[in-house]
């Protein structure tokens, strides 16, 4: 069912929804961008539909709504502990198709990876319903969702298209039907991007021998001088889920404190450092290799259905050194093709 809703009415509906929901969307933080007089667009609670930045790609992904960057797990005193609490309200997130598909990857990592569910993720994830936001035609320059098969989704409760004076809404979830009862009915279902300017070819890595050769490729070394290991790419990634856990004791009483988890990045130098100082990925190139293979090889090998990367392209947009992940994947594809060709030639000989 589709409706045409005026901005004014949409805001009234949002007000109504806010009684039960916290509503999150990409919001503009003026002059808070990396460079002077640039804006930052990231997810935050909204109070009106005008707050939603729908015509630009957000710098950061919506993962931080339910997987906060800093999250207290529990608080402890000398003899007791108390689990952290969350807000009672349910959560609505304005999200793009790639991000909704990204949340499925996060679900896999946090809920279906081994025998244990991550309750801190689960308790927020269970509250979430999605409002699908259409993308502009072809997506944005750095998008390659079509190549990753994450350009479409039917996992949403509402879908919206922003027009100049109105918002077209599709309702898939009966819970929301009543709210729109008085609105003008129209034919509307969201349109998905079907082709991006940026395309990637995923290399097929079908043997352990090939994987070993990929490990030793020279292409990774080029990132030793290009990548500054800042971790901006993983911070914005909808599917990056690594965290580190630490106990923080309070200054006034060192026996009281909290256990918290904080996002971590495989691109940082200290990510693989163990007690005793042993480190597995010492160079930026090695870390780039890990990230690349994790996104387009490891994850699928383990969980079968799909690659981890959804092709949102935020890592490309946010990299201060202008390293493109799409270009990296394509470079790897070419290298793998060469390796395979060399192998075939050898066989003939």
């Amino acid at each position, binding site marked *: 069912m589709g409706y045409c809703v005026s901005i004014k009415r949409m805001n009234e509906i949002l007000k109504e929804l806010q009684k039960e929901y916290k509503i999150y969307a990409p919001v503009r933080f003026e002059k808070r961008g990396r*460079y002077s007089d640039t804006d930052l667009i990231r997810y935050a609670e909204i109070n009106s539909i005008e707050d939603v930045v729908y015509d630009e790609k957000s710098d950061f992904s919506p993962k931080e709504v339910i997987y906060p960057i800093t999250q207290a797990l529990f608080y402890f005193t000398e003899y007791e502990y108390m689990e952290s609490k969350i807000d009672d309200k349910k959560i609505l997130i304005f999200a793009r198709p790639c991000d909704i598909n990204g949340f499925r990857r996060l679900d896999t990592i946090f809920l279906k990876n081994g025998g244990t569910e991550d309750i801190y993720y689960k308790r927020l994830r269970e509250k979430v319903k999605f409002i699908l936001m259409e993308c502009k035609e072809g997506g944005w320059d750095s998008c390659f969702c079509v190549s990753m098969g994450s350009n479409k989704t039917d996992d949403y409760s509402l879908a919206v298209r922003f027009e100049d004076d109105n918002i077209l809404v599709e309702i898939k979830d009966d819970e929301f039907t009543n709210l729109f009862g008085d609105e003008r009915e129209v034919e509307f279902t969201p349109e998905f991007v079907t082709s991006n300017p940026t395309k990637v070819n995923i290399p097929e890595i079908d043997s352990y021998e090939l994987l070993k050769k990929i490990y030793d490729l020279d292409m990774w070394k080029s990132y030793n001088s290009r990548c500054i290991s800042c971790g901006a790419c993983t911070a914005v990634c909808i599917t990056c889920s690594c965290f580190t856990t630490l106990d923080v004791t309070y200054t006034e009483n060192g026996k009281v404190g909290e256990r918290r988890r904080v*996002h971590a990045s495989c691109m940082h130098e200290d990510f693989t450092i163990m007690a005793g100082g042993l480190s597995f990925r010492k160079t930026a190139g090695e870390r780039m290799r890990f990230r690349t293979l994790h996104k387009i090889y490891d994850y699928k090998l383990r969980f079968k259905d799909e690659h981890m990367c959804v092709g949102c392209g935020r890592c490309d947009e946010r990299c201060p050194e202008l390293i493109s992940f799409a270009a990296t994947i394509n470079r790897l594809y070419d290298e793998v093709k060469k390796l395979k060709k060399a192998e075939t030639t050898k066989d003939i000989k």
Partner: protein
Amino acid sequence: MSYDIDIKKVRRNCYRQSKVRGEFMLQIRVPGGVIDAKYLSFFQHIAETWGNGEFHLGVRQTISIPGIKYEYIDEVNKYIRPYIEEIEVNLCGVDMVVDDNGYPTIGARNIMACIGNRHCIKANIDTTDLARKIEKVIFPSDYHIKLNISGCPNDCAKAHVSDIGIIGITKTEYDYDRCIGCKKCVEACAHHATRVLSVEKGKIVKDSCCCVGCGECVLVCPTGAWTRNPKKFYRILIGGRTGKQTPRMGKIFLNWVTEDVVLGVLKNWEIFSAYVMNNKPEYIHGGHLIDRVGYNKFKEMILKDVKLNPEAMVAERVLWAETEYRSNFNVKPVTQR
């Protein structure tokens, strides 16, 4: 050819005497060093019609056209009238009457600036925009002032060696919850700036006393925990200069001031200069004027009617450090030891 020329009058008109008798170099103002590219053909026409065909990118970012014969100056002045009108009056809003006589004075020199945040990833301010606003305040004045604007404390525009140097700084803000304690800002600050950041319990602590406001922490922060304050701040340096006798670095006068304060201070420059020189403008560097009456008198006069913003800091005194080419009395020839 024999010439009878009042050199000072011609210089005041922004024509500099050449070693070739009767030739001059026109210095065309480009406030902040940025203007539309369309003026390139305009400069080319002057150089090829009245000059020797060359032009110099003036060290104070003027477009300088050498080889103009004295007898052509009237023609050139007529030709540059629309340029002066467009740049000074229309672009910068300078309150002046433009006629066929060229630039009215050379006193307040061309304002220098780096490219600023219109392009540079390090810059904290729009230096071009500020230069144009300042041009309106300081020009045309017969009182000498060299003013340089840098977009960040790297100071590529050499604010440290000008009468008044202005540096764009940012009062960065820290979002505790967005910080992942990765220490990238700590490393950047130690490497590029003043080592004011450290990690405590997985988060960042800042010794804000010595923060120079460069914004390197923002540039490197992966999560957007460090952001620029949307409010713009400036540092003002005074008394820097080059020269044969006593070149010296400018020193901090004001820190963390707003644009209103910068413009307010500059409005008082002419009054201060006139006071020190008894209303007779001379080519004397600003630092010497401050030295003549003392820093405290300078401070009193330059801050008159200026409303300092709450974040502002003012130098209590200034410890000058000069290179004293005239007074190295204990550096003597070996024969006199």
